[in-house]
């Protein structure tokens, strides 16, 4: 498998001296080109797992291998997209997209061309000379996606990337993301607490639980794309996932499809 997570364990020492088990014995394999959503309530360790996969944090015990190599440090091939966009406010949109290209041996003209190309891909051509402060949240996240794609990464890690956006913008970005990712055939690990978002995007949904953070269940999502929230299969899928979170409510569900 492309990404192998074996018996991953992560503990923190809390202020009061208690041990907080952010991840407990997490084992998961992910295929190249797969779109996996880590879904769960806050505190289930989904963001921690993502940060460890991206090399920002390390495991307490267990192992993570990507392409056969253990993960130690962040790499340009595996790029993270943050909820708060992480754009550099003092740089123009184009210079933001060029950030990752500056450390490679690419001429200035070439960098500029690549940046334009990816800005067009995310639907922001014409915004190159603007500054992040002039952009809406959705546009800023598009710039962040363009910046990530510009370095031609193998994996995209996305940490609740649409969490700060209004529902309509969020929907639009979900649709566009599917399109973009299809075309670029990336492996994507996407953290969210939004069930619909997970069903909308994922090939597989990894359901996580808190205290200690662990995998509760894994659902393959075999719906055709594009996926519509109102389609019967979509609703059925949502029902199945909700039942995992609220088993006690089974008796109260009024109908099954």
């Amino acid at each position, binding site marked *: 498998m492309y990404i192998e997570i074996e018996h991953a364990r992560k503990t923190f020492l809390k202020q009061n001296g208690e041990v907080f088990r952010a991840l407990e014995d997490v084992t998961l394999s992910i295929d190249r080109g797969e779109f996996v959503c880590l879904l769960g309530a806050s505190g289930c360790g989904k963001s921690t797992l993502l940060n460890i996969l991206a090399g920002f944090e390390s495991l307490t015990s267990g192992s993570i291998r990507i392409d056969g190599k253990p993960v130690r440090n962040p790499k340009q091939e595996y790029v993270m997209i943050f909820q708060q966009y992480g754009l550099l*406010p003092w740089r123009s949109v184009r210079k933001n997209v060029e950030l990752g290209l500056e450390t490679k041996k690419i001429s200035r003209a070439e960098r500029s061309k690549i940046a334009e190309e990816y800005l067009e891909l995310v639907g922001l051509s014409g915004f190159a000379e603007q*500054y992040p402060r002039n952009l809406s949240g959705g546009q800023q996240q598009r710039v962040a996606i363009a910046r990530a794609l510009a370095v031609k990464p193998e994996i995209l890690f996305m940490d609740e990337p649409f969490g700060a956006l209004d529902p309509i913008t969020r929907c639009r970005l979900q649709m566009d993301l599917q399109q973009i990712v299809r075309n670029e055939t990336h492996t994507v690990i996407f953290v969210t607490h939004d069930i619909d978002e997970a069903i909308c995007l994922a090939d597989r949904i990894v359901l996580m639980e808190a205290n200690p953070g662990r995998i509760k269940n894994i659902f393959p999502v075999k719906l055709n794309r594009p996926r519509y929230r109102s389609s019967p299969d979509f609703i059925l899928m949502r029902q199945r996932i909700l039942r995992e979170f609220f088993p006690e409510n089974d008796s109260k569900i009024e109908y099954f499809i």
Partner: protein
Amino acid sequence: MKALKQLWTILVSVALLLAVWEGIVCFAGISPALLPSPFEVMKAIAELSRNGILKQNILASLWRFAVGYTLAISSGTLLGIIIGWYKPLFDYLNPVLQFLRPIAPVAWMPFIVLFWGIGDLPAIVIIFIAGFFPVLLTTARSVINLEPVYLKIAANYGVKSPSVLWKIVFPAVFPQIANSFHIALGSAWIFLVSGEMVGTQSGLGYMIVDARNNMRSDHLLAAMVVVGAIGLILDLLIARAELSILKFWGQTDVH
């Protein structure tokens, strides 16, 4: 409209100050030699400008100020970034800095005079000390408290140390540094006068000492008014620069 209203408030506030001052002079029966009226001071300013003394002293002060302040903010920023970036360095230095900071810059004066004699240097050193600490400490702290996401991005996109310092860290904390420049400007200007009261033969601080020695309270107040006015103008200028920096960095809603 807003600017007009602001101007109006400023005018009223200044007029009020002058009225109170004039009132005290008129009705308290204080000799003009002890407390000259606003009009006398105005006359003194006019006289000092006409014979070129004022201009000469202002230029001398501004020159010293420019040198001391520029040295303070540039070295404060540079060292602040370094000790903020290498956190253990900050941990070891911070107690000493906190100990030195509350000592008024003029307290160093005897040593300064012993080491560097008299002339421009003592005043410049005083201005430097007054401006250096706020910039150093603010810069170091803002580097330490830098948004972790910036460092993650730097690491993710392969921006290595030391280029991360000028590519990411410095611009990211620049608005806070600009704020410390503003604070430093205020305290440095205040200490300019005390810096020039010892060991110089020119400048606004010297003017004050000279007026005292000659019992010219009108000249003394004239110098004070000029110090206040220039301080106010410098503050307005840097406040404007700071605001445009904040706007550029997208850290304010004022457009």
